[in-house]
């Protein structure tokens, strides 16, 4: 039995918003793989829960009228990985979330939960930052869409306002067209471990595939929230696709990130892993984009 004060089941998005307004203290529960564990640990003991788990309308991946890839917030990791739209346009996201926990966690964990928890090590977070995802929130005043970088306010705090729930994550066409990416999770074991470093890179090459037209790099666990690397990106954009430029690019990330010493890994190790991951990710992205090195 969970130590729970009260439980409310949402019957629609509108109903969820009403429940949020009526019970402002209550916690939202989606798949529960963070919330229920924290209830067991005592961190969320005795709370009221508003469940959105039964809202099937928030599940699935589609392409909307504006040609955005639309991922419903309740879509599970395993369904993202298996989805043909994801595989065709943003395969790296499916690969990244295929490294979360183990198979059963990937069947219950949702992309909404993985972003609303505001956790820097979340396996979807760096890729969503690197692809400039848009977060859709629905609340009493209607729908609000914001860039993912603005959604993360600080460690474990995101911009969800009174009465709101997250309803989708969108990837705009300009972001996914002709773009290929790669993600590396560095952890101590292959399954059921939290990332010590997460690096996601994607590239769009010029038509002759000789120049970096647009490169985007993002990290998880390199700071309190997932982050992009503006200096590194400015350095490589417009440059020729050569190993020399790639080496310099990888070193450049140290100007953008600020990993910390912790029991999990030292700052020096984290910096080393960050540089090496950036290099491997961009090489793999270039290959996927049809470039040669």
């Amino acid at each position, binding site marked *: *039995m969970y130590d*729970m004060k009260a439980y409310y*089941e949402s019957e629609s998005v509108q109903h969820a918003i009403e429940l949020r307004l009526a019970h402002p203290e209550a916690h939202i529960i989606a798949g529960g793989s963070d919330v*229920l564990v924290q209830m067991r640990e005592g961190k969320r003991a005795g709370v009221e829960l508003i469940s959105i788990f039964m809202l099937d309308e928030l599940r699935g991946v589609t392409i909307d009228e504006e040609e955005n890839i639309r991922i419903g917030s309740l879509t599970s990791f395993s369904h993202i990985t298996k989805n043909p739209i994801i595989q065709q346009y943003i395969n790296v996201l499916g690969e990244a979330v295929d490294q979360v926990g183990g198979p059963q*966690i990937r069947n*219950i964990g949702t992309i909404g939960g993985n972003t609303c928890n505001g956790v820097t090590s979340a396996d979807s977070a760096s890729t969503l930052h690197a692809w400039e995802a848009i977060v859709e929130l629905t609340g009493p005043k209607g729908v609000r869409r914001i860039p993912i970088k603005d959604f993360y306010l600080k460690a474990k705090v995101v911009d969800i306002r009174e009465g709101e729930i997250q309803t989708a994550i969108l990837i705009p066409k300009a972001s996914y067209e002709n773009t290929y990416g790669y993600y590396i999770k560095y952890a101590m074991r292959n399954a059921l471990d939290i990332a010590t470093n997460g690096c996601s890179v994607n590239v769009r090459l010029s038509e002759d595939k000789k120049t970096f037209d647009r490169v985007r790099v993002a990290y998880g666990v390199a700071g309190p929230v997932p982050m992009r690397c503006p200096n590194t990106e400015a350095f490589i954009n417009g440059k020729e696709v050569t190993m020399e430029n790639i080496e310099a690019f990888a070193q450049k990330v140290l100007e953008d990130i600020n990993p910390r010493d912790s029991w999990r890994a030292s700052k020096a190790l984290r910096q080393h892993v960050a540089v090496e991951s950036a290099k491997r990710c961009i090489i793999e992205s270039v290959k996927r984009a049809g470039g040669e090195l």
Partner: protein
Amino acid sequence: MGKQYKLVRYNLNGKDVEQMVDVRASLTDMLRNDYRMTSVKKGCEVGECGACTVLINGEAFNSCIYLAVWADGKKIRTLESLLGPNGELADIQQAFIDEAAIQCGFCTPGFIMSSVEILESGKEYTDAELRKLLSGHLCRCTGYENIIRAVKKTMYKRLGKEMPQE
């Protein structure tokens, strides 16, 4: 607030059932206490060990971090569903015995339910893929090798193919 209950209707091992359930119950609690499905083990109860694994609409879930009220409208299968009408073991259960993939047996029902999902996909997996597909389970006794072999052997048998030499 007093105790809060909710009616859930679902299909358990092929039978339609309904139950008034305490909203605080996990699916493990309901399956064990209300239906005596004691194959569903309570291990870590935080989603790490896989001892409580059941199939929900054909996919493996840790029932310890799944609320009982969410069972509504679902098809749920536990290890008990594998037994034949006269208590015969399924091929995968027999393979676990034959390969000595069981010692204390606490992790076994969970491993077998994940194996059922793997086997019913009808696909042929590599060793590396099988290891990944079974990585949501912990076993403190066997050292895993025999478990992988039991699943692999059953996979090849069901595919009607010869198992490659190791």
